[in-house]
């Protein structure tokens, strides 16, 4: 690494640390503005003034704000998010249980978006102004306009209730639930490892609709970006050279132009993955998908603040990390950035 690249990487790292600090501060302040008195929640409203004061001191609430923030940060850094009021489990244990479902969903959706979105984007750029190009434009515009939870409801109505192509809400048929000991928590992987293909099929049938709905939004974004990157490349001189050499149009498109587009696309795919993690909050509720999004929503509705803050922190950290990885990968892959 050259010194210039090293300074750039250090700056990036500093920015990430600052962002994570901001995330901690934001969640801490959110916990402060909750209009519920945490002391009353512990002692009940008939406790004497001395008990109230003692618990208040035990909780550290008589300390100045910055001391409280310091305690909060050290707890979080030790992986202690407290206990969920709703599930009565440690928040970290809950998150470990619910996160794999979200990862499985977001990964499947991104895979759909990449596998369909990139070829569509390339073809749209190759035939600018054709019906395919117009279609991509419409798909993209709708992707930015349709509420994801509403599309999920409509997909359930049409493909589950009316046509019966896909399985309904949840991750598995009730029949199969708890029959598989979780190793990775990703049902497709776990069932394949165990060789239980009935469960694998059930899991796949359940994954189809939510992944399809989220995948649509990923596809809308990725195809649009691929198209515009490709258009930039197709205007370059090396494309003219390649064509002049008599290379087939397919080779020019899929090897020369696409090869140069893949690097910026890595960033786009990572951004799309991060935003799917976020979008899963609304999608999971619709599909009763037992992931971190459902967990977060249920805790939100019952003002289970430990769970809300823990979930927000974990999703936020993943969000920031995925974006950081995308940035680093881009620097690593693109020789001009070295």
């Amino acid at each position, binding site marked *: 690494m050259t010194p210039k690249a090293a300074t750039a990487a250090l700056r990036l790292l500093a*920015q990430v640390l*600052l*962002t994570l*600090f*901001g*995330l901690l501060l*934001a*969640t801490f302040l*959110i*916990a402060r*503005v*909750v*209009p519920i008195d945490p002391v009353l929640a512990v002692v009940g409203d008939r406790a004497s003034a001395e008990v109230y004061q003692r618990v208040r001191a035990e909780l550290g609430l008589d300390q100045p704000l910055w001391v409280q923030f310091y305690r909060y940060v050290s707890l979080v850094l030790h992986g202690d998010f407290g206990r969920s009021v709703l599930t009565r489990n440690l928040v970290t244990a809950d998150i470990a249980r619910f996160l794999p479902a979200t990862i499985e969903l977001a990964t499947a959706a991104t895979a759909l978006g990449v596998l369909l979105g990139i070829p569509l984007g390339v073809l749209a750029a190759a035939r600018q102004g054709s019906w395919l190009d117009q279609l991509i434009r419409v798909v993209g*515009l*709708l992707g*930015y*306009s*349709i*509420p*994801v*939870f*509403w599309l999920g*409801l*409509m997909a*359930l*109505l049409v493909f589950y*209730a009316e046509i019966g192509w896909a399985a309904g809400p949840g991750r598995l048929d009730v029949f199969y639930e708890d029959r598989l000991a979780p190793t990775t928590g990703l049902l497709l992987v776990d069932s394949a490892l165990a060789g239980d293909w009935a469960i694998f099929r059930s899991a796949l049938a359940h994954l189809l609709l939510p992944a399809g709905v989220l995948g649509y939004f990923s596809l809308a974004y990725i195809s649009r970006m691929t198209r515009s990157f490709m258009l930039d490349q197709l205007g370059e001189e090396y494309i003219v050279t390649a064509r002049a050499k008599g290379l087939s149009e397919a080779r020019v498109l899929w090897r020369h132009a696409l090869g140069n587009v893949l690097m910026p696309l890595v960033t786009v795919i990572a951004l799309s993955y*991060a935003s799917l*993690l*976020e*979008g899963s*909050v*609304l999608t999971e*509720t619709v599909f009763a998908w037992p992931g971190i999004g459902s967990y*977060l*929503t249920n*805790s*939100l*509705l019952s*003002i289970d*603040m430990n769970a*809300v*803050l823990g*979930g*927000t922190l974990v*999703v*936020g950290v993943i*969000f*920031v990390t995925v*974006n950081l990885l995308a940035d680093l990968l881009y620097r690593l892959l693109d020789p001009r950035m070295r």
Partner: protein
Amino acid sequence: MTEGTRSWQDWLASDAPASRRQARLGEAWRLLRAFLRHRLAVAGLIILGLLLLAALLAPLVAPYPPAAQHLAERLAPPGAQHWLGTDEFGRDILSRLLYGARITLGIVALVTAIAAPVGLAVGCTAGYLGGWADAALMRLTDVFLALPRLILALAFVAALGAGIENAILAIALVAWPPYARIARAETLTVRRTDFIAAARLMGASAARIVLRHIMPLCLASVIVRVSLDMAGVILIAAGLGFLGLGAQPPSPEWGAMIAAGRKFMLDQWWVGAMPGIAVAVVSLGFNLLGDGLRDVLDPKQR
């Protein structure tokens, strides 16, 4: 084309305006024509015009009062009596959508009224002052930009309590950072110009320069960004309403209406489908308008 129209169009399109007024009107005329050539943007403008009309005229055009219950006609399918059907209390869905347009517009207006001035103030101040103030304000902006917006807004609403006011506040709180970035970038391009130097020589204070000379120049870019963002704001607001954290029933907010229609999805699809279509059409309108405005106003794209 008659002689009269020809001459005023020539006057507007003139290359050598004789007065400042002619030059200004001419520029506006050129932008207007560029905008009108953009068919999709005009379609977006029409959609939003209809939304505005629906919100203003809801009491006149709605066939029924939004809260009027006709239990005998509950869950009626779309038909001549009720164009878009009725919900579980026999309320006319079309009328509720028309009144709901007021809520949607209100959310959009309030979020803009809070987030745009905050973003402008932060961005212009950072850009004009430079140095430490710039570094500090922009790092703060970057932190906010890097965090997941929807989840942060959800957590804020959970803490403040469910309700439309808190939802608006939470959305505004996560919406300002892009405006600050844009305003700063615009400020950097004008802070070294002669007219700013002249204003400073005449003894204008930093506050006056930022407020009177720099902010107005940043407005155009911020307006474009706002109109592109509004689709996202509407989607987040509908999402909050859907989760039960935004507007509360019996308010005819579209997201809350979708949530109510969820129970009847399988047999009475129209209860949940219609408000969803309304959300999609309106955010599509903002997206089309924003795209068009960017093409017309952003000189780098030309």
